[in-house]
């Protein structure tokens, strides 16, 4: 962990990690009890990636998210209430309930949207970077995607475009070793996705995705480079999803031993220990942060429950922006 870790940083990070963890665990329960319909892709285990990456970003920088996107939205400063309400399909959700778990955005905090199509967001994030470049806004885009998405054609086309045009974008691959049930070794011809960077002449780095500050440092380097006009980077975060792919996954494709080994690297107890060790917070303070984060989750559930479903007429509204053209 970074040696010059400030107490404020650590607390904020701990809050976010716990918020995301708590949020996802809460969502799983709500899916099980039928309060939330459809499916969900829990981010549990991968929190350090979203939190670390967003730590390296300005508020006006952008992120593009995936199907496993609640963590990205919360890490970028999204509102747990509106996020939870969206999962419930409520009118107060980010998309008024129309998007659901895989399809929501919060432009106000720089979150340009999650995406139900594996690899679908990669070119879109690339285009946002083009927009930042053309407008000279100084913004940088972080595009999150999984190891599975790295085998889609859009990955290749987008990274080539970004490198060619020196776009201010950082491709953050969350290599959690599986795409649904498919192990990386059964889907990707090489072990380290970061090595694909050389096919586009951009830097490619591997980083411990269970370590917030390692992720933040790597992303910061890439963001600085991008902001300086020196083009894109590919960062591969080695991480693990502690739970199944989605609500129904029995995880037949991997061993409980493998899971335990990764769980031993859980970023949350790790950060708690470091904070105590370095005197960045007392046990009581850590408990308070934890309680505060979990309380935010509870309020979000409450908010979502109490919110109304959209009115029937919402069905046919909002397909188009009216009154232009």
């Amino acid at each position, binding site marked *: 962990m970074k040696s010059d870790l400030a107490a404020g940083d650590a607390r904020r990070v701990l809050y976010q990690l716990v918020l995301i963890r708590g949020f996802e665990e809460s969502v799983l329960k709500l899916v099980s009890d039928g309060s939330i319909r459809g499916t969900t892709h829990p981010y549990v285990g991968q929190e350090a990636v979203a939190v670390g990456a967003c730590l390296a970003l300005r508020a006006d920088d952008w992120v593009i998210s995936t199907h496993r996107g609640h963590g990205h939205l919360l890490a970028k400063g999204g509102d747990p209430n509106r996020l939870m309400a969206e999962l419930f399909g409520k009118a107060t959700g980010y998309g008024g309930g129309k998007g659901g778990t*895989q399809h929501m955005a919060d432009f106000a905090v720089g979150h340009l949207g999650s995406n139900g199509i594996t690899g679908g967001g990669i070119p879109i994030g690339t285009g946002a970077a083009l927009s930042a470049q053309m407008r000279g806004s100084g913004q940088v885009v972080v595009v999150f995607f999984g190891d599975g998405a790295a085998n889609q054609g859009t990955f290749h086309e987008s990274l080539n475009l970004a490198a060619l045009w020196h776009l201010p974008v950082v491709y953050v691959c969350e290599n959690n070793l599986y795409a649904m049930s498919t192990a990386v070794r059964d889907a990707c011809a090489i072990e380290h996705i970061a090595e694909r960077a050389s096919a586009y002449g951009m830097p490619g780095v591997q980083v411990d995705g269970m370590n917030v500050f390692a992720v933040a440092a790597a992303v910061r380097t890439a963001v600085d480079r991008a902001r300086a006009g020196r083009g894109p980077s590919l960062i591969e975060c080695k991480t693990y999803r502690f739970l199944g792919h989605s609500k129904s996954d029995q995880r037949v494709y991997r061993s409980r031993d493998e899971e335990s080994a990764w769980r031993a690297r859980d970023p949350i107890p790790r950060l708690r220990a470091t904070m105590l060790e370095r005197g960045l917070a007392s046990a009581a303070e850590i408990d308070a942060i934890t309680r505060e984060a979990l309380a935010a989750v509870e309020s979000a559930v409450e908010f979502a429950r109490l919110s109304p479903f959209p009115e029937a007429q919402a069905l046919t509204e909002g397909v188009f922006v009216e009154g232009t053209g």
Partner: protein
Amino acid sequence: MMRELTYWQALQEALREAMTRDPTVFVMGEDIGEYGGAFGVTRGLLADFGPQRIRCTPISEAAIVGAAIGAAITGMRPVVEIMFMDFVTLAMDQLANHAAKLRYMYGPQVRVPLVVRTPAGGGRCYGATHSQSLEAWFLHVPGLKVVAPATPTDAKGLLAAAILDDNPVLCVEHKLLYATSGTVSADAPALPIGRAAVRRAGTDVSLVTYSYYVGVALEAAEQLAIGGIAAEVIDLRTLAPLDTETVLASVRKTGRLVCIEEGTRTGGVGAEVAARVAELAYEYLDAPIRRIAAADVPVPFSPPLEQADLPTREDIVLVVRELMERA
């Protein structure tokens, strides 16, 4: 011998029988091995046929379909599973510009015995990118056949036929049908592609539909019967080539046509059916044609909105009653 099978079991039986009979048949797709596919159709096949023939792929829809085409034109009979129909968008070029056209362009030296199976439909709160019914696009791709079974028997029979067919066939399955069951004959032959079925005879109105909505239309017909309206229910079964004759014969008898589908209305399958009837059975029509379909919107996630979006038995009943009152 008749057994009770679910729709997914019937599909799997077609796969198993084809693979047992013909060593060139194999399956490709994402998570179709130990995981059994997103909807379980291939569960158990890996153990029985091995990883060469139950071939788990990376997430690369274009290359999966493209590679299947390459295998098909060189003597294999690949069956591709696209996990959700929404993702055929990524394989659209390979399907429309290659699979469907090679035979016409290259001549008789080439055959493309390719099957692409994919689940369509909503009703499970999966949101706009995991709920679509996009089959209408493929009616507009000459060179492609499209089947859309509504029952376990048809699922087995049409998938078997698709695998035997030397042309590319898109097999549109429905998420809400996988768990439904019915009796399926163990030794039924493959069903002919291109033939609709009259699921219920009636004289007042023709309900033309396919896939999941056959069941809904039958329920509506039941309810209409109570009110003295005899609805005929046509299950198209194959969408391309469309069995125009069966539809026309029905409309000639009933004089009224209601097309029912789950996909969005504009440019849907019902448009084509309606157009054919308005061309070829105009003289027999006693009332305007009606289409019942989803609204022209992306499928909303919010459960009450999704329910409001998808056509229902009540929608059908209301539309038919309104039509009958015009007479």
